[in-house]
Structures are given as structure tokens and as C-alpha cells.
């Protein structure tokens, strides 16, 4: 729009309101995380009367946060790595190769992407039960079980986003490479993958973020030893005392990895989302 005086005033007002709207909850988290417990109950204080970093040290002993961290990392990284690897191949086929049943396959991927986890939770739970009855393999409460269920949402998303990225890479690049004798797969691995690397990383980060924040499957399919952060944080609040300051400190700690990752790849993410999801 044109920057008239009126526009600038309006802009300042709107952007200030939006900034406050975003900032207030973030400020509450950070300011609560540096308060002593006695200052957390009762009337909320915007400016901490006393600043302490103790909650950031205490969070590790009040609940086994390091263990939850480890569980979340293992499950999230494994689900992301499997999804992206499988998705690269499928997305390349969708973007570049003609084949019978392509439309059916794309439609399946697209529509399963929109179905909620609640539709898959009970059936997968029953399938896991049957597998245990037959083979003795315990999937409920195991890393493997959670990794499989997390792929219900990371895989379709990765396929869809990556096929958007691959389609946006000029065909001439791989044609030149194939004329030079690399073959289809050679062109994919030596030309397309290096060019698409930023997009692939963005998709991986996005899958990581969505798995890191998952609550539903974790609430049914974890046990004490495989509990993820999304459920583990509840432990600060489940006793008669609610350690709000520690809960907020832990929130900051679990948010930092995904926040940093998101900020690093956000430019590529926007390009991918707007190419893949919104045409």
C-alpha cells in the first residue's frame, strides 16, 4: 500500500496491538520462569520483585526432565528421518515421473494429511495389541510404536511439501545431467538433492516441530520410561503444589531447540508452504 501519513499511523497502531498480543504470553512465561516460588502464587506481578535462575536448575531434579528430553529427541528425530527419506523418493516420482495410479496415490497422501490423529489412535492401539499377542513384540510404550504413529502426520506432510519443491526445480537441470549419462537416479541424487537441500531441511525442521509438540499419541502410547516432554511437563503441576515457575522455565528450555530451528529455516519454509500448500 502507499505510505501516506494515515497509513503510517494505522500501521503503528495495528502492529503495536499485534506485538502486544504475541508478546504478553511470552513475557508471562519468561518472567514467571525467573521468579522464586513464593512470588508465583497470588496476584500476578508483571515485574518480578526478585529475580532468580533457580527454577532453571531445579527443573532437572523435580521431574526427570533430561529423560523426557531424551525420549522426545529419539522419537522425533527417528520419525523425521524416516519420513523425509521415504518422502524424498515418493515426492520425486510425483513431481517428475508419469505413472499409472499417480493421481490415486497423490489423493491418498493429500487426504490422509487432513485426518486427525484420533482416527488412527484406537486402530493402531489394537494393531499393536495384536502384534504383541502374536509375536510378543511390545509396541505400546515403546519408542518404535511412537515413531510409527508419529509418521501418520509427518510422512504425508513431507511428501506433499517435497513434491512441491521438486516441481519448482527446472527440469533442464536433470535433463542435462541425464544426457551426460547419470541416469534418472543419478540425476536425483547428484543434481536434484543438492539443489533441493534447503527445502529438504525446511521440511525436516517442520516435521520435527510438529512431532515435538505432539500430545495425543503420547498420552496413550507412552509409559513412565518413554514419556515425552509434552506429557512430562504436566508433572510440575500434578502434585498439590504447582511449580509454575519451574513449569515456565521448562517451557522455555523445551521451546528453544524448535524456535531456533524454525527461525533458521523460516524463509525456505514460507517458500515451501506457499508452493506446496497454497497455490
Amino acid at each position, binding site marked *: 500500500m502507499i505510505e501516506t501519513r494515515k*497509513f503510517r499511523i494505522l500501521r503503528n497502531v495495528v502492529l503495536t496491538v499485534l506485538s502486544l498480543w504475541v508478546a*504478553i504470553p511470552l513475557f508471562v512465561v519468561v518472567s514467571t520462569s525467573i521468579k522464586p516460588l513464593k512470588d508465583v502464587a497470588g496476584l500476578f506481578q508483571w515485574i518480578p520483585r526478585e529475580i532468580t535462575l533457580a527454577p532453571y536448575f531445579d527443573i532437572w531434579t523435580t521431574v526427570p526432565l533430561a529423560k523426557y528430553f531424551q525420549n522426545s529427541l529419539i522419537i522425533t528425530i527417528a520419525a523425521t528421518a524416516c519420513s523425509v527419506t521415504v518422502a524424498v523418493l515418493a515426492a520425486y516420482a510425483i513431481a517428475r515421473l508419469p505413472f499409472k495410479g499417480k493421481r490415486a496415490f497423490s489423493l491418498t497422501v*493429500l487426504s490422509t494429511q487432513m485426518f486427525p490423529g484420533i482416527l488412527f489412535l484406537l486402530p493402531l492401539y489394537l494393531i499393536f495389541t495384536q502384534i504383541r499377542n502374536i509375536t510378543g513384540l511390545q509396541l505400546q510404550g515403546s519408542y518404535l510404536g511412537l515413531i510409527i504413529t508419529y509418521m501418520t502426520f509427518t510422512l504425508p506432510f513431507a511428501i506433499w511439501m517435497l513434491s512441491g519443491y521438486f516441481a519448482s526445480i527446472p527440469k533442464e537441470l536433470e535433463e542435462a545431467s541425464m544426457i551426460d549419462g547419470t541416469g534418472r537416479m543419478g540425476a536425483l541424487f547428484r543434481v536434484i538433492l543438492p539443489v533441493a537441500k534447503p527445502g529438504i531441511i525446511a521440511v525436516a525442521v517442520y516435521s520435527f516441530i510438529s512431532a515435538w509438540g505432539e500430545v*495425543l499419541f503420547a498420552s496413550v502410547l507412552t509409559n513412565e520410561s518413554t514419556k515425552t516432554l509434552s506429557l512430562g511437563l504436566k508433572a510440575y503441576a500434578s502434585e498439590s503444589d504447582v511449580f509454575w515457575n519451574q513449569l515456565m522455565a521448562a517451557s522455555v528450555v523445551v*521451546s528453544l531447540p524448535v524456535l531456533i530451528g524454525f527461525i533458521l529455516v523460516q524463509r525456505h519454509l514460507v517458500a515451501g508452504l506457499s508452493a506446496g500448500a497454497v497455490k
Partner: protein
Amino acid sequence: MSHSALDSGKAAEGSKPPANPEPDGPTQAPPIRKRRRSFLPYGLIAPAAILELLIHIGPMLLGVWIAFISLTQLNLTNWLNAPFVGLQNFINGLNPESTIGQAFFSTVGRTLLYTILVVGFSWVLGMAGAVFLSSNFKGRALLRTFFLVPYALPAYVGTIAWAFMFNQRDGAVNQILVDTLHLFGDHRPFWLLGENSFGAMVVVNVWQLWPFAFLMLMAALQNVPNDVYEAAAIDGATLWQQFRTITLPMVRPANGVLLMVMSLWTFNQFNIPFVLFGATSPKEATLISPLIYQNSFGSWNFGLGGAMSVLLLIALFIASVFYIRMVLPKGADND
């Protein structure tokens, strides 16, 4: 990057006959090439197709089956032998005259209202942010990243922050509304119980969702050249007229899919109520996904949960047909 790859391709050429790079015999080259082409795509999609079958198609079919058997806590571990009861689960649970049925239908209505409110507010905020951040000024890049923070944060973290603000009688929300703005007199409302809980949940969801609308709308607005606005301004168009006649039409193509995607996410929302209220939401704020969860894993009435899931599945199938029409361009098979 592409250059080095091309060069290495050329280097490899020397060792092989250039006309036939495939290692297979030169005499049958054309037919083999053709056959290879037709098998390669299937090889590439095979892992994904197998996984789709295992994690989506199979469980979905099983989910439909569950709706027609009597599955309880007792036969859960031996569910293959659960008795087939036909439409009994649908009749018991979804009869509009029974209490469970009434709860189901009012939940569907509430979830629709919730979706409209959350998506509507998110769109308006996202549009406001996108319009004013598409002009150049100092600090623009910083604000742009900052606005995306609620979206990047794990959903439960944002919800916990709001739960803390809403939770206590003396929390930040009541402090702003009651102590600063004097909105309710001496009364300090509870926000996570009773009727207020629905509104509280809308607020939390809008806070987390609006950056996505902002992101998509900003990407759409980047294609609008500034001289269009300049021309309009010279012709005397007000800011509002410029917005209505230039900005809105320009984002229309992006809007369809954006609204669809946001609606589906919101309609299926589980995380926010689960973290905000625990496993059982207040009855004024129960959405469809948490209701199915409560029936299945709260009261162990899996048949009922299954019947509701089937209805949800049908609704989402219909929605996905519309979604796919918008996303997949016609003739996508031909390229």
C-alpha cells in the same frame, strides 16, 4: 552446485559409450529403457505406499470395523473375537433423543462454531499483520519473525502459558480485565470452568493459529506490484478502497486453500483442550476429537468412539474432496 554435478557426469561419460549409458547390453537398449521408466516410479513410491497402507489405510479400515463390533475394556486385548453388533453402536450412541446422542450433536455444532470463530479471527489478524508488514520500514524483518513465534512454539507450551494466565483467579487475564479495565466490577470470573471455557479456548487457538494465516497471506501479497497501489492512490482511492479492490482480490487464490487448511486443523483440534482442561473438557467446551478420546480412553466405550469416528471420517472425506479440487490442478497426471 549444479555445475559440479554436470561436470562429474561428463567425466563419467568417457568410460562408457555415450549413446547408451545403461550398463545393460547395447542391443536391447530401447525396450529396456522403456521398461525401466515404467518400473522406476513404482520403486520410488513403494516405501511410501507400503507405509501409507500400514499407518493410514489399514487403521482407517479397522476403525470402520470397530464401529460395528462391541469393543469394551474387557475384550480389548482379545479384540479379534469381539462380537459383531451391526449398527447397534450407532443406534445406542447417536440417537438424537438419547443423552449421548444429544451430547454428540451439540458437540458437532459447537465444533463448527469454534472452527468459524477461530478461523475468522485468525484470518483477520493474519491479514492485518500481512498488509502492514508488506510495506518497507525499519524493524520489519524482526517483527515478521516475532509474529511467527506462537506458531513455532510447541502447542502445549503456548497453551500452558495461557492456562497460567487464565487459570488463577488472580492471574494475568483477570488482572488486565478486572483490575486495570474494571470490566466485571468486583467479580473475578473463572475462565477455565463453565461457559467461559469455550471463549478461553478460542483465544488460545487464535493466538497459535493466526501466524499461519499471516505467513500465507504475506506470501500472497508479495506478488502485488506497488505501482498498482500508486495508480489507485493517484486516482484518489482511499486506503480502505485500495484494500478492497486490490489487496482482497489478489489474495483470493491463496484464500481458498488457506481457509480450508485452517478449518480442518481447528475442527480436529485436540492439543489445546487437552492441555488446557485435562483429559475431560468442561461440557460447554467439548470438541469432537476430545469427545471421541473421552469415550474411547476415558469411559472405555470404544464402540461409541468408533461410531463417532466413522461419522467424522465421512465428513472429512467430503471436505477432502473439496480441498483436493482446490490444491491439485486439473491434469496433474499428465506432466
